[in-house]
């Protein structure tokens, strides 16, 4: 079998946890990509996918916490996780600066996720050799 060329991936997740399977499939994919020696340029959350960056998600203790698992994976591998600001604000996900701007009592963005514009996605598509989308199923 021919050696596989190493790739630099951008992953885009548009499906929400506890609504779609996208965050699980994407995490299993991401772990395997890193294990095979590929790199992940960044992970971009878009649309309903921004709910994956919620610090307030509290699933039952016998269920996987997808936000927590993703946060650990991103930290351990020093991979940027970016939630789209327009998707996030509509859906009630704010970082500290948005919290102040909208005079909310707290931020609910889970570290190490950050909030930024679609330009981050554009940069990802330019910097990566592969862009893989994880949409909600159905």
């Amino acid at each position, binding site marked *: 079998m021919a050696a596989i060329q190493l790739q630099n991936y951008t992953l885009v997740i548009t499906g929400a946890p506890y609504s779609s399977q996208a965050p699980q499939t994407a995490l299993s994919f991401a772990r395997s990509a890193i294990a095979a020696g590929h790199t992940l340029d960044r992970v971009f959350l878009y649309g309903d996918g921004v709910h994956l960056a919620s610090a307030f998600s509290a699933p039952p203790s016998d269920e996987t916490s997808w936000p927590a698992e993703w946060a650990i994976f991103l930290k351990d591998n020093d991979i940027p996780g970016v939630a789209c600001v327009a998707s996030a604000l509509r859906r009630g996900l704010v970082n500290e600066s948005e919290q102040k701007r909208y005079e909310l009592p707290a931020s609910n963005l889970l570290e190490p996720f950050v909030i930024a514009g679609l330009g981050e996605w554009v940069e990802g598509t330019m910097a990566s050799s592969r862009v893989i989308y994880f949409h909600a*199923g*159905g």
Partner: protein
Amino acid sequence: MSTLIVIDQPPYGTWAGREALDMAFSLAAFDQPVALLFTGAGVNWLRKLQETSEVEQKSVEKNLSAAPIFGVEAMYADAAACVRYRLTLEDMVAGVVMSESSSDLLNQYKHTAFAG
């Protein structure tokens, strides 16, 4: 008031069916008459031998098998959908009844709720 909960989405890919099951169990817990109808791709909830550890979700097979014990009056599977997905009663969890006409079934219940 009798309720029919309809699940037409397959398991694991979305949460809608799972949350619809909770609705059925909740009605049963309050001693309200309730039945489940699995139709379309939703009949795949009923397939035996679901091995879910690698997708890190709980299998619903056990819950479904326990549905009669929890007070769910009936679990119907749409017969045409079962044919499409090559499901026979033998392939399915215990206690399933084939429904030849889902529209007749919808007509028998005062209150119908679809999964998501």
